[in-house]
């Protein structure tokens, strides 16, 4: 039931309020056709029933995107992305199409869930079992939401926020990562599907860790996820993104954008565990994880801490960063990046010191195995206004085997003589002696590598919220299976 463009243009000019379904494709279809053009964007926006301003915002970004060159400066190798060879909106699966119970799920997937110690109920949710068959999860989510409502915390999908809290979204969206920032962020602005929206009111300490796990009905979230978290004065929130369970997705490019805003005396703790499909042993078919994450410490005495455990994806390209604008603001970045087989990673952070007496801490642990390659790329920038800025950076690399690579590319730019910036770096190999010692105490090779690597990553792991930390430790062991011997 296609409508011709000409007819729509006529209607547009008559109705005056901007008929948003101005495109050729039939919106009764469940999925957008392959490829990317203005129609695709209108389709997405219409499907989500977005207000006009949201669609305009998307289109503005898309038009600018068309003018941007591909960034090529990272130390990662991949064949050029064909942006037309992808679907930008797929319909969620109907309950009828979903598996009814775990027996219908790929046994290899279940095996990994077991190794990670994921409880049965959670496995069902992860495997996409029809929600009404997972009673516990639904009731848990409901209780969860009630608690948050009691204290005024808003935690919903980004799409919902556009409908229910447009004033907040309009105020902060794009204020930390503007659409022109980089090509992948720009694409996200045009075609983002969904993500999280969090608002913590003044003086509220969010009573529980917010986790994406509780957005059970989240569909299409991996591809171009858009998240916005606002911590009002004196508030605190800890947010967990991702999960240790391996996730497959038919979309190869993941270009998420996460914006955090912390006002006076507020604190945001953002933890990520990423285990997207890394591709086969030759690196074929894995996910490209090109993410832009940035936090603005706008208020005085505000604090933003990023912790990430990146074990998946064929290519990881991301720099969770902090803009330390408020006086006495604090930015922290803790990272464990594991690359094995043919994975590649170019990751790090940017700490921009702007206000007075700002502090930043960077602890990066990179583990490379197989024929993988990874780089830590960091920027510590102290602006002229940043009186008394302090930074401590520690990057440690651990190499397993003799065919992998680990690189460190630190940038330090200071324009204020009172700044103190410290940088330490170490590179090591897992020694035969350590492995032999562990084996002689009865540990299998796998257990030995896991123990040694977890020890290496300890400083970062202890910044993770408890529930994540236990799973993440197991994940680290599993990611390196078969790397030694």
């Amino acid at each position, binding site marked *: 039931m296609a409508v011709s463009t000409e007819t729509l243009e006529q209607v547009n000019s008559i109705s005056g309020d901007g008929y948003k379904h101005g495109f050729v494709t039939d919106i009764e279809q469940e999925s957008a056709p392959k490829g990317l053009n203005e129609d695709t964007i209108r389709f997405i926006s219409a499907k989500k029933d977005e207000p006009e301003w949201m669609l305009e915002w998307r289109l503005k970004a898309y038009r600018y995107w068309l003018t941007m060159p591909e960034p090529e400066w990272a130390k990662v190798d991949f064949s050029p992305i064909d942006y037309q060879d992808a679907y930008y909106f797929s319909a969620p699966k109907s309950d009828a199409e979903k598996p009814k119970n775990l027996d219908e799920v790929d046994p290899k997937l279940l095996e990994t869930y077991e190794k990670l110690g994921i409880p049965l109920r959670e496995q069902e949710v992860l495997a996409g079992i029809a929600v009404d068959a997972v009673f516990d999860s639904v009731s848990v989510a409901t209780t969860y939401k009630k608690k948050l409502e009691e204290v005024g915390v808003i935690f919903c999908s980004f799409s919902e926020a556009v409908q229910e809290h447009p004033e907040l979204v309009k105020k902060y969206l794009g204020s930390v990562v503007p659409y022109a920032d980089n090509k992948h962020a720009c694409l996200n602005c045009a075609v983002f599907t969904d993500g999280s929206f969090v608002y913590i009111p003044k003086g509220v300490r969010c009573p529980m860790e917010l986790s994406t796990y509780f957005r059970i009905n989240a569909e299409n979230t991996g591809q171009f996820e858009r998240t916005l978290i606002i911590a009002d004065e004196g508030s605190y929130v800890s947010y967990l993104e991702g999960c240790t369970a391996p996730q497959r997705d038919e979309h190869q490019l993941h270009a998420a954008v996460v914006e955090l805003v912390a006002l006076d005396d507020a604190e945001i703790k953002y933890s990520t565990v990423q285990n997207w499909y890394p591709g086969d042993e030759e690196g074929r078919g894995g996910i490209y994880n090109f993410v832009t994450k940035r936090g603005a410490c706008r208020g005085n005495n505000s604090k933003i801490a990023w912790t990430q455990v990146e074990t998946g994806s064929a290519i990881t390209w991301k720099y969770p960063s902090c803009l330390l604008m408020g006086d006495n603001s604090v930015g922290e970045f803790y990272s464990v990046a594991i690359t094995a087989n043919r994975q590649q990673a170019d990751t790090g952070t940017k700490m921009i010191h702007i206000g007075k007496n700002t502090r930043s801490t960077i602890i990066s642990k990179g583990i490379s195995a197989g024929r993988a390659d990874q780089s830590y790329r960091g920027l510590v920038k102290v602006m002229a206004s940043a009186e008394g800025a302090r930074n401590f950076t520690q990057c440690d690399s651990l190499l397993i085997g003799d065919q992998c690579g680990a690189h460190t590319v630190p940038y330090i730019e200071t324009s204020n003589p009172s700044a103190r910036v410290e940088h330490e770096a170490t590179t090591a190999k897992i*020694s*035969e*002696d*350590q492995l*032999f*010692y*562990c*084996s*002689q*105490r*009865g*540990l*299998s*090779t796998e*257990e030995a590598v896991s*123990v*040694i690597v*977890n*020890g*290496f*990553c*300890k*400083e970062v792991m202890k910044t993770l919220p408890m529930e994540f930390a236990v799973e993440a430790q197991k994940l680290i062991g599993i990611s390196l299976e078969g790397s030694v011997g």
Partner: protein
Amino acid sequence: MSLIEICDLHATVDGKEILKGIDLTIDAGEVHAIMGPNGSGKSTLSYVLAGRDGYEVTSGQVLFDGQNLLEMAVDERARSGMFLAFQYPVEIPGVATTTFLKTAVNAVREHRGEGALDAMQFLKFVREKAGALNINDDMLRRALNVGFSGGEKKRNEVLQMAVLEPKFSVLDETDSGLDIDALKIVADGVNALRGAERSMLIITHYQRLLDHIVPDQVHILAGGKIIQSGDKMLALELEEKGYASFAGAEAA
């Protein structure tokens, strides 16, 4: 049945033959000592028994509790009850001693069909054994061997022995680098682990350790072979006369 039976064991390292036919039998409950000059093959013997890579057995066999030890992987040997107290224990940064020990103990317990100990149970268990070796909670929390003095490392090895309760332990120059007080503590710790079901092979240069850990038999290792065996008096004789006087027996 003997716990350990070594028959005509030959081993090479980097293409050079170090062990040239070792015959040794140790019964359950016995403590044997091996003494010998540098380069005689003492450490090689301990690594071959533990199963270290790079140490190639060219002929001979070793039976451990009736099983073919040489066919077992390093960790399998360990879980079956074989322990090597290293001469130079390695450091493992970021891994607390208790964490490491708990993983090892539970691996052995699983092999024996016993349930794993949880954190609380394990802590109680390890504290009992640690107290006797003058190892306090603080040391238990530190990363394994990181920044430990020589004496602390050796005491830690004995703690691991106490906690893993192996059937057969090889102590590779456990006395090296120890002062008199530390030596006494380590020796007491080792003696406390002697039992009818357990055996030990003590490798040492000096007779002094054997004053504290009295052996049932002493063997002199030279040129990759055991050239003489005897009771504890042999160690005293060796100390008095030196290795050279026994070298003549090598030809035999």
